């Protein structure tokens, strides 16, 4: 079952009206036989650039995120519905990717370069390509004669 993410940017409205719009958006999903997993309010923010929608220019928008399940065939109709809603400035539907598990290696990354494991490996790899140096096999760590 695919989880979709719907990101909607609503025009600036009073709270009751915003609530109505959110309800309308949700009802569309329910009508198509879907159900919602999560609804998040990402706040009212400045948009990265001014956007034109329904003959009005918007510089700010209210950002909302829906996570929902719906039949894949209903995604295009949903987008079609939302673009005709005058209160919606922008909308996009994405497939939700599962979060990849990872280990926090920040403490290692913040170390000075010679202490990092990756850098040490690189140095050992580079040392392999050095030209062979002549060994005197004298048992001394210096050259006893004048060079």
């Amino acid at each position, binding site marked *: 079952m695919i989880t979709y993410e719907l990101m909607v940017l609503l025009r600036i409205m009073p709270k009751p009206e915003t*609530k109505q719009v959110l309800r309308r958006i*949700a*009802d569309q999903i*329910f009508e198509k036989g879907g159900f919602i997993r999560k*609804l998040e309010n990402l*706040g009212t923010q400045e948009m990265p650039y001014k956007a034109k929608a329904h003959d009005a220019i918007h510089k700010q928008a209210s950002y909302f995120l829906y996570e929902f399940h719906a039949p894949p065939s209903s995604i295009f109709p949903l987008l079609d519905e939302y673009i005709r809603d005058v209160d919606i400035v922008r909308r996009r539907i994405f497939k939700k990717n599962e979060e990849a598990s990872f280990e926090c*290696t*920040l403490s290692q990354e913040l170390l000075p370069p010679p202490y990092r494991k990756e850098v040490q490996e690189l140095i050992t790899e580079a040392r392999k390509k050095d030209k062979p140096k002549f060994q005197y096999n004298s048992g001394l760590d210096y050259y006893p004669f004048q060079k």
Partner: protein
Amino acid sequence: MFQLIKSFSALKLSSNTIAKYCTYNLSYNPALLPVKKTHRKPRWVPVAKSKVFRIPKKPKLPEDEANEIRRLFNNYKNNVRSIRKYLYKKHCTIFEISSDPQEILKEFKEDLVKCHEINDKWNAEVKINREARLQKELDEELVLAEKKIEEQMLREEEMYAFTEELVRKQKEASISFITPENIDAIIDKALAEETDYNFAIYPNGEKIIGKKTRPTQETEKVVGAQ
């Protein structure tokens, strides 16, 4: 130059001789030149334009002379052919074998029996090898098939476990699914609470959550940082 003349004069040479050896313009001496060879046109040089349409005249021998040459050649040809045939017959081994059909048949039969013996021996050897090989191949195939079946079973089990896990997770999550019944409450909650995924990290691992949050003393530390 003066030094050179001085050294020559020590050898008691005449001034004429010195002059001869000290100048580069030696007088012409055919003995010093390389032997002249006959000139031939190189192979890659084409026929001269003036000679392109020249048809060389065919040499024509007088009739009696031509007849004489032909006669001599025929004579030579016949002699050589007869010698060759003679030597061939003399040294050919084919004609040494008897031409008695009974004897030939007998030899042929003996040879056939020998051939059959060798062939049967070979067949027996090959049969043993073949049976061993086929048995080995069969065993290997059986082992492979068993292994494949095991792998398939394992894969199916894994797949079953994976789907079971998936269904279990979805069932667990389905408790918190939002339906038309509770959507209003959820919307109210969302409008009341803002979510902010932005955060900043200090070099010492301090994490400050929120886009416009100012740093305070009570900041949480990233797990695993220094």
